[in-house]
């Protein structure tokens, strides 16, 4: 399968955590096949945007390296967007 020339090793995929294509490839070469696994190994998806920017790029690299479509998305958890602790606490006194 012809490798996509855009994905050179030095290219930054996860801008929040400074993770490069090379680091993603290294994680995949060690046997990891899910986005969550790549996230654990490289921190891609742990930053402020929680994978909004890099998720589809990592999926493309995974497809390129393994020939298979990734079967699971990044695990989603609250909060929906960055939320101040004060807001999380709420107003009611418990």
């Amino acid at each position, binding site marked *: 399968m012809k490798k996509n020339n855009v994905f050179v090793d030095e290219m930054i995929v996860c801008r929040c955590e400074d993770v490069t294509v090379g680091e993603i490839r290294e994680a995949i070469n060690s046997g*990891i096949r*899910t986005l969550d696994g790549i996230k*654990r190994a490289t921190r891609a998806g742990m930053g402020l945007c929680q994978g909004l920017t890099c998720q589809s790029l990592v999926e493309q690299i995974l497809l390129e390296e393994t020939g298979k479509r990734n079967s699971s998305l990044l695990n989603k958890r609250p909060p929906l967007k960055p939320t101040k602790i004060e807001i999380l*606490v709420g107003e009611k006194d418990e």
Partner: protein
Amino acid sequence: MNKNTRVTVIGGGIIGCAITYYLSKKGIDVTLIEKGEIVSGASGACQGSITTITFQSPLLEMIVESQELYQELKKKFDNDFECKKTGTLLLLDKEDQLPIVEAQADNLREKVTEVFLLNGKELRDIEPAIAKDVPGALYCPQDLTVNPIQFSLRLVNAAKEMGAKIYTYTEVENVKIQRNGNFTIVTNKGKLNSEYLINAAGAWSSIIGEMIGLKIPVIPRRGQLLVTEPIQPLIKTTLIEADYLTTAFDQYSMETSNNKRIRLGVAFTMNQFHEGNCLIGSSRDFVMYDRKNTIEAIRSIAKRSIRFIPKLKDINVIRTYAGLRPYVHDNLPILGEVPGIKGFIIATGHLGEGIMLAPITGKIISELIERNETSIPINQYSFERFNHAY
């Protein structure tokens, strides 16, 4: 997948990784089987503080040994796993906690070199961000913080280099004991014949036990944490509140408490990583294999956190997560060969101390297999204490 191995480790969490590492270091043929990925269980959803501050014998000595092993491995692995001597502060919420905290200080001094009781001023000299009405704290400056994910991945890489076979996405479906005492491990990727079987399956250990008719009393206990955005340095130690010492967080006490926070099992803990993110915890509840976060726990953790660090109220939380810790009702892990089932070794039930006890567990189990005796006595952790018929 290979057909034969000498030792099979079930479970690719930090315990399984440590055992596999120490076994392969001894030149012993070992295969690690993990149904998900390395640290896709509790080890990938926890905090990473290696502290003695709330412990007593016998776990206290084990954690002290583990701290030394972490330092050894830090040198060996070139500090890839963010191992730092951050120290721990056990924060008093109220003056009336002082007697118990003083007693714990005396208890610690027998085994730990540096233990200090700090008043409010001394405390805020170290951590200015702590609320003005926190009366004092216990301080253990030698405590460590590590990144459990990076540590486990590092252990696995080192084990692979020394000949260990690692199979992820491989689920154990059944275990059969052969006439000669060897184990046939049936997985979704093939069968494996093994002389030793080590159950390091954490919250799922009871499922493996059932396969050979053993009732292993480990149940999942969910712990939730919050992750903040990266911020300027706010704290430099690991913070734990004295409630970890003074309040019982067992199932019964939690269920019967009048205090909503205690019913949710919430007590404050926090550390800050070099990237600037803070981890804030934590809750405990028993919901079997449910790994979701709950709004009640998130609220309660957030509320408790600003009691101790008021500045947190304007900080953003970007993520929450939850992990399933392997809970044993008597608060001790289960370690050692099961009497009557030669070669079947249990290494689980580390509760909230898995990261703390991983290196020493790995070392001890490897000793058990190499020469059938351990450098630290482990009789008190034996499965035998449950008196189960099998």
